[in-house]
């Protein structure tokens, strides 16, 4: 059942249509930033601007840090592809933030829930782990490729949660 589709993780596979597109990731992060701001007791231009800027900064940090980690721990693959495998995997993994961002918007608008960060946290960690999965499909080996981005995503989402509590 479905045996013909069993790609071996850790063995390089042909990845079709893996163009590097980070725009969905930036948009998801900024959506969370907007939701955080509109759930503050008072909504102002400054708080909105700061929240969206913080979200964008965490997007850049997450993308750069996970890409760097993949390149660092898979030097052979990095040399073969010029680092393209890591960027491609991260961009693909980050697209899996979309369901969480959509659900967070719906929960906020339709149900009036103000809990945004559980959605954001789950989204970031899913994106990191999915990027790890993609990098293994590209030929990287070892469970470290899933655990490391998950750990980095956990750190980033925790830092973001702490910052959300401090921001006006």
């Amino acid at each position, binding site marked *: 059942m479905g045996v013909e589709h069993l790609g071996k993780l850790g063995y390089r596979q042909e990845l079709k249509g893996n163009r590097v597109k980070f725009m969905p990731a930036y948009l998801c992060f900024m959506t969370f930033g907007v939701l955080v701001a509109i759930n503050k007791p008072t909504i102002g231009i400054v708080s909105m601007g700061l929240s969206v800027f913080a979200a964008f900064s965490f997007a850049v940090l997450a993308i750069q840090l996970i890409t760097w980690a993949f390149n660092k721990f898979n030097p052979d693959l990095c040399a073969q592809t010029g680092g393209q495998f890591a960027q491609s995997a991260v961009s693909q993994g980050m697209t899996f933030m979309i369901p969480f961002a959509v*659900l967070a918007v*719906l929960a906020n608008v339709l149900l009036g829930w103000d809990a945004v960060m559980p959605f954001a946290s789950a989204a970031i960690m899913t994106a990191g*782990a999915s990027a790890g999965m993609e990098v293994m499909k590209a030929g990287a080996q070892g*469970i470290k490729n899933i655990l490391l981005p998950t750990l980095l995503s956990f750190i980033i989402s925790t830092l973001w949660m702490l910052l959300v509590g401090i921001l006006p």
Partner: protein
Amino acid sequence: MLVQNEPPRWKTALNMILNPGDVVKRQMSKVPWPFSLSVSGLAFSLFFLQTGLDMLRAGQIEISTVVLISMLGLCYGTAGVALIAVMSWALSQGSERAYNVEWAISAFALGYSATLVYVLVGLVFSLALGWKTAVAFGVTGVLWALRPTIMTVRQMSGERIGFSIVVSTLCGAILLFGWAFLGRFGV
């Protein structure tokens, strides 16, 4: 002849949290759907139990309604999850027909292993400390099941990423908003 030992089912369930992509690719055919549905059924019944306990503490319902809500959770986690799995499987048939409906139900339901872990921890906090845990642990647990759902739909649909994102969002929305609706109905 080399006999390969199958990993225990609880290990497969836990692996679904860490590496769902690998589980749906290689191990799901060895997990029977009744076992998977027992995982999702238990997860949702405990999630709904905590919803009931939160409402009981707020003085909104009585203990008999808490039991009723928990039973509703059991139906939600078994029949509801199975129906959503069948819907996703049917939608995936346009592009990929390598998996049968039992596989789809089993993979979908086992994806709620993360929810089960979350609600078990939540139940401890609810009973020991009297915290309101339905949203903090239950909703978070359901969100954590989205990743296995994405991986399952992706596998079923022949690696169609856009399709898997849309269908997973739909599944997540049905489950979360269904819970919110039933919660209000319980009041």
